[in-house]
């Protein structure tokens, strides 16, 4: 039996962050199915690709990440979204968590810690969905 790779969409307006996270996620045996450089594109690619995981920045052109997440979660309540951002004021964190973000990672988090958080969050999410 082959295990399907976790399909990931990365949304960040900074190209070097997308490149970095693509390498990180590929290293975690995930398949990066799309890269969005703004919130609007994130919503469009999400609807088209239906990824298992969306890594989402907040401050982006056209549509902010929190607005994009709100739109995605209202259409797909089971969407698995992790915020990856340098915005860390209490109001923004609270808003994203209330809207349904599975986790919220500060961009200054060391990569090893970041990977650990993503893995643990994904495992918890799968358990709550009753998957293995």
């Amino acid at each position: 039996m082959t295990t399907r790779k976790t399909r990931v969409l990365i949304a960040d307006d900074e190209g070097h962050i997308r490149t970095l996270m693509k390498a990180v996620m590929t290293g975690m045996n995930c398949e990066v199915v799309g890269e969005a450089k703004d919130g609007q594109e994130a919503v469009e690619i999400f609807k088209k690709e239906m990824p298992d995981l969306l890594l989402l920045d907040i401050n982006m052109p056209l549509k902010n990440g929190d607005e994009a997440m709100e739109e995605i979660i209202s259409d797909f309540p089971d969407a698995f979204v992790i915020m990856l951002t340098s915005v860390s004021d209490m109001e923004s964190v609270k808003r994203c968590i209330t809207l349904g973000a599975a986790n919220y990672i500060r961009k200054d988090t060391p990569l090893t810690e970041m990977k650990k958080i993503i893995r643990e969050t994904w495992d918890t999410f799968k358990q709550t969905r009753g998957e293995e």
Partner: protein
Amino acid sequence: MSHRYDLNKMLEEIKEDQQGENPQEKEMSQEDIKRMLLERLNAQKGKKT
């Protein structure tokens, strides 16, 4: 013209500024975020039972 600084008054003003800081603007650490997520998880568990 020389200025005279009242150190005690300055310290009082700093204290007042810190007290008046809006908690919503406070930067959250990854640990703070983890705690907030745990609170959400516990609240969801509480709703289910």
